[in-house]
């Protein structure tokens, strides 16, 4: 047990840290105004230009020359920086404004899409959503498509995508490279119940509004899982229960070249691939020959493109049909059909369980996508969002979307969701902004100047929901960490519920180190009816409770804390 006294634990005080940062004001700086004017005047210039920038005042000069490579026809540019050695590096243009930066927290509605495509190639460019191929579910199934749409977030308009040099298909691999949408493979229904599996691909450049064909891949046609590594599109395996594929390939657009990758040690038929920054993790189910699993749990493997090697993941506790995963916060968050979730950490090569998703059970395979800090999960119209900061899932379901086909796409810091009612055919384009959508409005801020012993009160500490039973727990948290949350004798027991956690003891409180910082709170929790005890760490931000929802921390002015209603 570690109880941290925030005032005396650190020998280096907060103000000392800031003092050290203030010493940076003594750093000499280059005068770049001439460079700014040169760049500002040359947005349409063709070819490569170089200019030399002044060095530091009286110091060793930084001989940086900056050049532009402007593709005038494209209207976009890449710029290249040189050190004195003439070694160049490509630098992609960076969108500097998020078009959804001002979208309201939570759900909001955008212009209705012309169609809602499932299993399509989708990509977010920074300002446009590109959708190509896929099928539109229409009760008895829909036909695959060879066309697509563009949603331009800057003007809210939907427009057709130029014709692609590809046949209609679903389940293609897709990636946004920073300048192109890459599409490869996929499948489409053929005659006599057979599927046509494609081995071709194309790339769409929004700047030129043109497609180009990809060179032939060194593997045969299939509907693979895929990731974009920042350099290559890796395609692997096949989401096809009639095929057993352990091979794959990687396409490098800068070289316009494919390479084969090493064969994997596992087969998967229903899978998701995520890119960790170093490895491609494929995770899912092996359901060959039907809907029956060949393994006791979901399985996975990790491919290292630098070494061209695979390793197997340890087994998870998720059901053998689980095949949905997303990468967030240094972990792969995986979901199963029964709304169980777990997190895999490549640095420890271990799994840890997460609380189940707080949704009513649906007979439905989940889908998920991630943005920085959050995972959006869709269970056939019921949605939940996982926040890495508080390590919990939140129910974000809208009753009006129950039973809808939802197709979520990560768009910067916003989730875009295309939806279609299977009953009425109504379509919606929605945005979910988790920025404040999981926080409580109007909550008082923690005052770090409160006297020692000041007590913070968690007014309403809503735990997860199971069916319609809500477990509301009030609790008390001392700044110094001595006080425990309310125990069963406090009268603040959970109202009712099949599954709930109960805070048993606060182990430590770390922070806050700054007025807006999160507290790091370690707690020992009893799960369910006490049969299992776990220790977990939470981040408690001002304006949020341990769940990041409802009215959370309220300063109690140094008086003994009282539990909320």
């Amino acid at each position, binding site marked *: 047990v570690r109880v941290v006294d925030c005032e005396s634990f650190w020998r280096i005080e907060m103000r000392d840290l800031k003092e*050290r940062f203030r010493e940076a004001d003594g750093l000499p700086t280059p005068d770049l105004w001439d460079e700014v004017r040169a760049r500002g005047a040359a947005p349409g210039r063709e070819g490569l230009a170089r200019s030399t920038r002044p060095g530091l005042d009286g110091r060793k000069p930084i001989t*940086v020359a900056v050049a532009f490579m402007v593709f005038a026809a494209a209207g976009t540019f890449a710029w290249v920086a040189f*050190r004195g050695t003439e070694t160049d590096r490509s630098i992609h243009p960076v969108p500097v404004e998020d078009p959804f930066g001002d979208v309201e927290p939570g759900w909001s509605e955008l212009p209705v899409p012309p169609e809602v495509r499932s299993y399509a190639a989708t990509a977010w460019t920074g300002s446009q959503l590109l959708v190509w191929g896929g099928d539109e579910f229409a009760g008895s199934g829909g036909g695959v498509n060879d066309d697509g749409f563009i949603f331009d977030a800057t003007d809210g308009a939907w427009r057709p995508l130029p014709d692609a040099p590809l046949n209609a298909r679903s389940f293609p691999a897709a990636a946004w490279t920073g300048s192109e949408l890459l599409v490869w493979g996929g499948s489409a229904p053929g005659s006599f119940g057979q599927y046509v599996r494609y081995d071709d691909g194309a790339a769409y450049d929004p700047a030129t509004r043109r497609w180009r064909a990809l060179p032939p891949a060194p593997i045969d046609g299939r509907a693979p899982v895929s990731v974009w590594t920042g350099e290559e599109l890796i395609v692997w395996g096949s989401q096809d229960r009639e095929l057993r594929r352990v091979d794959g390939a990687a396409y490098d657009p800068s070289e316009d070249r494919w390479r084969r990758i090493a064969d994997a040690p596992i087969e998967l038929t229903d899978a998701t691939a995520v890119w960790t920054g170093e490895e491609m993790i494929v995770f899912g189910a092996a359901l060959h020959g039907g809907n029956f699993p060949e393994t006791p749990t979901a399985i996975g493997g990790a491919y290292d493109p630098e070494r061209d090697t695979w390793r197997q993941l340890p087994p998870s506790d998720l059901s053998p049909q689980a095949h949905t995963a997303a990468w967030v916060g240094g972990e792969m968050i995986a979901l199963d059909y029964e709304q169980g979730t777990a997190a895999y950490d490549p640095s420890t090569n271990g799994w840890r369980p997460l609380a189940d998703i707080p949704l009513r059970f649906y007979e439905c395979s989940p889908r998920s996508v991630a943005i920085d800090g959050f995972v959006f999960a869709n269970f056939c119209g019921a949605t939940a969002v996982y926040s890495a900061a508080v390590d919990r899932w939140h129910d974000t379901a809208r009753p009006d979307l129950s039973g809808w086909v939802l197709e979520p796409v990560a768009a910067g810091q916003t989730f875009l969701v295309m939806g279609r009612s299977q009953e009425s055919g109504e379509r919606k384009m929605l945005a979910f902004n988790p920025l404040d959508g999981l926080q409580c409005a109007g909550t008082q801020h923690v005052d770090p100047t409160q006297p020692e012993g000041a007590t913070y009160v968690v007014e309403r500490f809503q735990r997860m929901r199971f069916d319609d039973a809500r477990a509301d727990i009030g609790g008390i948290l001392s700044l110094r960490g001595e006080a425990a949350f309310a125990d069963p004798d406090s009268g603040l027991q959970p109202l009712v519920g099949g599954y709930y956690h109960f805070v048993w003891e606060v182990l430590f409180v770390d922070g806050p180190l700054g007025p*807006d910082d999160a507290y790091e709170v370690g707690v020992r929790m009893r799960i369910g009816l006490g049969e299992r005890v776990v220790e977990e760490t939470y981040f408690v931000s001002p304006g949020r409770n341990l769940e990041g929802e409802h009215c959370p921390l309220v300063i109690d002015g140094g008086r003994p804390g009282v539990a909320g209603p």
Partner: protein
Amino acid sequence: VERAGLEGIYREHGPRLWRALLLATGDPEVASDALAEAFAQALRRDSDLRDPAAWVWRAGFRIAAGEMKTRNRVEAMSVDVVQEMPESFLDLWAALRRLTPHQRTAVVLADYAGWSHREIARAMGSTASAVGVHAHRARRRLRELLEDRDA
């Protein structure tokens, strides 16, 4: 933004923005390129910007983040530019190298530039709560590292 007006903003904010970018990236080339590109883009936008100073700060950090993402591995932070600074600052400089890019950006913008977590989140394309976690972990790690060095 008129050129004269933007030049004034450059004179007032440019040096501090460059230093903040340097602290966050550890690379004077990236800091210079990001700063120059941010102001150049502001110049091209003429009067589109309501708050040009805030815009170039955000743009500078986003451009720098984009540049750092293109690098496969974290490169050693340049020491040339800071070698004549006081030892206490060099300790901080060395400690910053041990943080993740997100942690470095969060703590630099919070403790050097004085931004709120919401402002940092907007510049980083993240959320205020995530920034709070990054900043908290960054400060804790910095203190551990600096105390080790002091000891």
